C-alpha cells in the first residue's frame, strides 16, 4: 500500500504550479472579466506547450498517455490560481471520452492529436450541467442526448450566452440537432461513456475546489497578519484563528478522498462513482467553508469587488454546483451504501464498488 504521489508526479506538479502562479494572477483574471471571450489564447498555447492538454491523450495519438491520477494535482493547481481557461474540462473530461472512441472513429483520433497540438478546442456538455462551458471558443462540441453522444462542429450549433455568478465563467445553452452522422456512441456504450464523463468532471471540479479552498485560506491568513484592530493583528484573536484552523482541517481531510477517487478512476473507472462522489462532497464542503470563513475573517473588505477574495469565492460557489451538486453526490453515496453488495466491511478500506 502506498498512498503517496511519485517524485515525478510531484515535480511536474511543482513546475506547473510555478508557471500558473506566475502567469495567472488576480489582475489577469480580472482582465478576462472585461474581454469578450474571457479567454487568453497565448496562455492556452503555453499550456499546450507544457503538454497539459495532451496529458491524457494516448501516446499513439501524440499525447503523454497519462492517467487521472497524474492529472489530479494539476487540477488542484488550476483551482489554486482560479484559472479561467477550460484546461481541466478539456484534458480530464473531453480527452478521455474521445480516447475511448478513437479506435473505431477516426474523427475522434484526429481530434485527440489536434487537442494535444493546440490546434483544436473541444467543449463538452453533460446532462448534469444543462449548460456547456466555453462553447464559444470551441471548434467542436461533445454533446449528450439520452444515451447518445454526438460530435458537432461549432457551425452546427446555436449558442445562447448565460451569465454566471463567477465573472470568469462563460456558459452557454446549446441548441442543436444530431443525426446519424454526428452520433459517436449510443446504448450501453453511450451510457457508460457519459457516466465516466460525469465522474471525471466531478473529480476535476473537486480538485479545483480544494485548490481554491487552500488559496482562500492562504490569502486570508496573510490579510489577518496585516490588518490591525485593538492595537494588534486581527489574526492574533483566537476567534479568527479558529475560523482558519477549521478550514485547514476540512481541506487537509478532503485530500485523501480526492486522491483516492483519482486512483480509483484511473484503475477501475466503471466502479468509481462512490469514490468520486465522496471527493466532490468533501472538497465542496472544504471550499464552501473556506469561502464563508475567509470573507468573515476579511471583515467588510472581503465583501468588496476590489478585494481579490471574491474571484475565488465565486468560482467555488459555481464549481460546487457543477458536475453534480452536493445533494446529487450524497444521494449516490447513500444509494451505494445501502446496496447489499456494497464492499464496506472492516476489511474493505480500499474496496471498490460492486
Amino acid at each position, binding site marked *: 500500500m502506498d498512498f503517496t504521489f511519485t517524485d515525478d508526479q510531484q515535480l511536474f506538479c511543482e513546475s506547473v504550479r510555478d508557471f500558473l502562479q506566475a502567469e495567472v494572477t488576480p489582475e489577469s483574471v480580472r482582465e478576462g472579466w472585461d474581454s469578450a471571450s474571457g479567454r487568453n489564447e497565448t496562455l492556452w498555447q503555453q499550456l499546450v506547450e507544457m503538454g497539459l492538454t495532451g496529458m491524457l491523450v494516448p501516446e499513439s495519438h501524440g499525447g503523454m498517455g497519462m492517467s487521472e491520477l497524474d492529472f489530479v494535482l494539476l487540477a488542484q493547481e488550476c483551482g489554486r490560481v482560479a484559472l479561467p481557461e477550460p484546461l481541466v474540462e478539456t484534458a480530464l473530461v473531453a480527452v478521455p471520452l474521445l480516447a475511448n472512441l478513437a479506435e473505431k472513429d477516426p474523427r475522434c483520433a484526429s481530434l485527440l492529436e489536434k487537442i494535444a497540438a493546440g490546434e483544436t478546442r473541444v467543449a463538452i456538455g453533460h446532462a*448534469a*450541467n*444543462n*449548460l456547456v462551458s466555453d462553447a464559444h471558443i470551441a471548434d467542436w462540441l461533445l454533446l449528450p442526448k439520452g444515451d447518445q453522444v454526438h460530435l458537432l462542429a461549432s457551425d452546427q450549433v446555436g449558442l445562447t*450566452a*448565460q*451569465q*454566471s*455568478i*463567477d*465573472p470568469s*465563467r462563460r*456558459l452557454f445553452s446549446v441548441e442543436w440537432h444530431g443525426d446519424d452522422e454526428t452520433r459517436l456512441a449510443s446504448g450501453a456504450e453511450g451510457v457508460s461513456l457519459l457516466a465516466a464523463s460525469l465522474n471525471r468532471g466531478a473529480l476535476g471540479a473537486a480538485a479545483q475546489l480544494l485548490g481554491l479552498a487552500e488559496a482562500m485560506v492562504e490569502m486570508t491568513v496573510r490579510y489577518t497578519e496585516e490588518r*490591525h*484592530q*485593538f*492595537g*494588534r493583528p*486581527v489574526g492574533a*484573536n483566537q*476567534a*479568527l484563528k479558529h475560523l482558519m484552523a477549521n478550514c485547514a482541517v476540512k481541506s487537509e481531510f478532503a485530500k485523501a478522498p480526492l486522491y483516492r477517487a483519482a486512483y480509483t478512476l484511473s484503475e477501475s473507472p466503471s466502479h468509481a462513482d462512490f469514490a468520486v462522489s465522496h471527493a466532490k462532497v468533501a472538497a465542496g464542503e472544504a471550499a*464552501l467553508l473556506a469561502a*464563508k470563513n475567509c*470573507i*468573515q475573517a476579511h*471583515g*467588510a473588505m*472581503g*465583501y*468588496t*469587488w*476590489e478585494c481579490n477574495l*471574491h474571484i475565488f*469565492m*465565486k468560482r467555488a*460557489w*459555481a464549481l460546487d*454546483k*457543477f458536475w453534480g*451538486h*452536493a*445533494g446529487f453526490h*450524497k444521494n449516490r453515496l447513500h444509494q451505494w451504501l445501502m446496496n447489499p453488495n456494497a464492499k464496506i466491511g472492516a476489511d474493505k478500506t480500499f474496496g471498490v464498488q460492486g
Partner: protein
Amino acid sequence: MKLSFSPEDEAFRREVADWLKENLRGEFEQLKFRGGPGDEHMFAEERQRWEQKLAEGGWTCVGWPKEHGGRGCSIEQQVIFHEEYARAGAPGRVGHIGEGLAGPTIIAFGSEAQQKKYLPGILAGTELWCQGYSEPGAGSDLANVKTRARFDEAKGKWILNGQKVWTSLAQESDYCFVIARTDPESKGHKGLGFFLVSMHQPGIEVRGIQQITGTSEFNEVFFDDAECDAEDIVGQPGDGWKVAMGLLGFERGVSTLGQQMQFQNELNEIVRIAKENGAAQNPAIRQRIAQAHTELKIMRYNSMRMLSGQSGSDGSLQKEALIYKLFWATWHRSLGELAMDVLGPESQILEAAPYELSRLQSMYLFVRSDTIYGGTNEIQRNIIAERGLGMPREPRPA
C-alpha cells in the same frame, strides 16, 4: 402572559392593511418586494416618494411619541404595522436610518432645538440620514476613530476632517450622524463627540464602494474641513461614545421587527421555489426549511418577549438584546445558502448581463456581510461572553 392581540389592535391591523392596499399601487406598484438586502440601491427616488406617501398617511415613525410627531403606537401596534407592511410587499424603507436610529437618538439625547430642526424632515420622509461610524482603522475597534472635530471660534462651527467607510445610503442622504474625536489627545471611547452633519456641503465627498454584488450600497465619505453648526453636537464634547452606544440599543430594538418580516418574505419565496422546482421532495432540504422556520419563529418570539419587558426608552441594552445580532446574522447567512441549494445548479446563472442578480442571488451575496457589519459575529460572541456571562475580558493593549 397573553399571546394574542386585542380587538382594538385587530381593528388597527385592518386600518394598516386597508391603507396599504389603497396606496401601494399605481406608480408604487413596481416597488413591491423591492429595496431589501442587496437591493437597497434600487428605485431610490421612487422609494423616497413612497416614504412621503407614508408620511401623508401618518405611517412614518409610528413608534415615536406623539409629542415628537409620531403616532405613539404601542409595541403591539408597531408589531402589527410591520407585519402588515411586509405582508403587503411594501418596499424597503429609505428612511429607516432616520426613523430608527437618528430620530430616537435625537429624541433621547438631543436638545429641543435639534428636535425641532431634524425630526420634522424625518417624519415627512423628505430628509434622509446615514450613519458615520466605521473608519478604515476603526471597524470592530470602533473606539479607534480618527476623524477629528475641531471647534473654530471665529466661524463658531465645528470643523471635521477624516474618513468614514461602509456608509449605507450616503449618496442619497441629506444628513449624517458622525462620531469624531473632539479631544485630539484622547484615546479609545473618551474624547469623542456625536455630530449631526449636513451632507450638502463642499467639505464632504462620497465615493461608492463596489461590492461583490457589483453594486454600491456602501460608500466612503471623506470630510475635508466639513462644517457642523455649534448647536449640532448631541450632548457635550466627550459624550459621543455614550450617545453612540445608546443608539446601538435602538438598532437592536423595535427596528428588528420589520427586518424579521423581510426574512419571512424571503423564506416564503424559497419555499415557493422549492415546491415549484421539486427541491421540496428532498428530505435534506425539507429539514433545512423546517429548521429555518423554527429559528425565525424563535427570533420573532424573542423580540416580542424582549419588547414586552422593555421599560423606559433610554435605549439601554438588556441581556436578551445582546444575543440578537449574532443570531439573526448567522440565521440569515444560512438562509442564503439554503436559497442557493434550493435553486440548485440554476443558482449560478444570473438574470442577465452584465451581472444582474436575481432577488435570491442578491440576498445570498449580500448576507455574507450580515455577520460582519454592525459588529462581527466574533465581536458579538465576546460581548455575550464578557458582558452577558461576565467571563474574563479579552486581553487588550493599554
